[in-house]
């Protein structure tokens, strides 16, 4: 990340300084302001879902969810702590329901549980890949945008989309198995 970010940013800023020096600082400052507004928006989303998750946890609902996914979690992640397993289950449920916003806080909580060193563990890598390739039943944003822009049949992309996400999920998980071996 360090190398990718530094090389790309330096190259882009250097070109910008040559072609449009007056706009260089504006671009940087605008980006930081954009980060502030985005972060505040995210905070609202996290606030709702973390609140609901806490209630669900106190009702022992998360424990139940975690039991439902036990087999799958064991296969994908191996032995992780009970807390990590619960967050992973919440994350999976959010992804399956298409609530990507709720998937983020649970994934972050799970990763905090599984990672203690500088090198990403197998379970962390698996969780990341599962989220990055997650199976999507309904791509809400895309279908909505198509409808608003006058598509005759906004949802005719559902089937190809489902197949494409299935392919990427299966290949992604298989590649984690290739790179890191079976779950311990």
């Amino acid at each position, binding site marked *: 990340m360090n190398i990718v970010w530094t090389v790309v940013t330096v190259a882009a800023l250097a070109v910008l300084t040559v072609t449009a020096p007056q706009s260089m600082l504006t671009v940087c400052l605008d980006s930081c302001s954009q980060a502030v507004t985005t972060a505040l928006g995210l905070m609202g989303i996290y606030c709702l879902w973390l609140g609901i998750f806490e*209630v669900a946890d106190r009702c022992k609902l998360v424990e139940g969810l975690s039991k439902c996914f036990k087999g799958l979690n064991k296969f994908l992640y191996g032995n992780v702590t009970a807390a990590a397993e619960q967050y992973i289950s919440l994350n999976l449920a959010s992804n399956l329901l298409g609530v990507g916003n709720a998937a983020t806080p649970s994934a972050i909580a799970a990763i905090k549980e599984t990672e203690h060193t500088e090198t990403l563990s197998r379970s962390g890598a698996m969780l990341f890949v599962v989220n990055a390739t997650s199976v999507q039943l309904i791509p809400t944003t895309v279908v909505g945008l198509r409808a608003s822009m006058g598509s005759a049949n*906004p949802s005719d992309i559902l089937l190809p989309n489902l197949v494409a996400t299935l392919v990427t999920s299966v290949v992604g998980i298989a590649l984690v198995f290739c790179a890191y071996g079976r779950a311990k």
Partner: protein
Amino acid sequence: MNYVVPVLLIAVLVTGLFKRVNVYDGFVLGARKSFDLTLSVFPYLAAIFIMVNALHASGLDVYVTKLLSPPFRLLGVPEEVVQLVLLRPFSGSGSLAILTDVYKQYGTDSYVGRCASVIMGSSETVFYVASVYFSGTRVRKTGWAIPIALFCNLLGAVTACLLCRII
């Protein structure tokens, strides 16, 4: 389908009532955690946005798109959506803007428009997600995680363009 999430949300709160859990306290305690979470995510957002916006303002993104169009054509990905495939790992709002442009220029129901739709739906903002996910940890070496996710994005794009020809 529109009812699933709202009903689940109410169900959680009602279960709390029946199980005599302090629902109010629980919600407040959980919601408080969003503050720390946002704080740890925020600087990573700033870094990503600077990179993406500088890339766009400098015009380097258009140059790289032109450079990479021929190899993408070999994989069956039309030139019109290459920019979307390339920007997607970095920025969600940026790629949504490109998707809107593609719709405006070629129509939502054209082959290119459908390709772009499925590419958008089946890929993820890999670098953005990585910086957010690992923000609260000491992880600096992410190993195979990012290369695998990027490869899957590419595979998703190729599959999308292939599927849109048949389905």
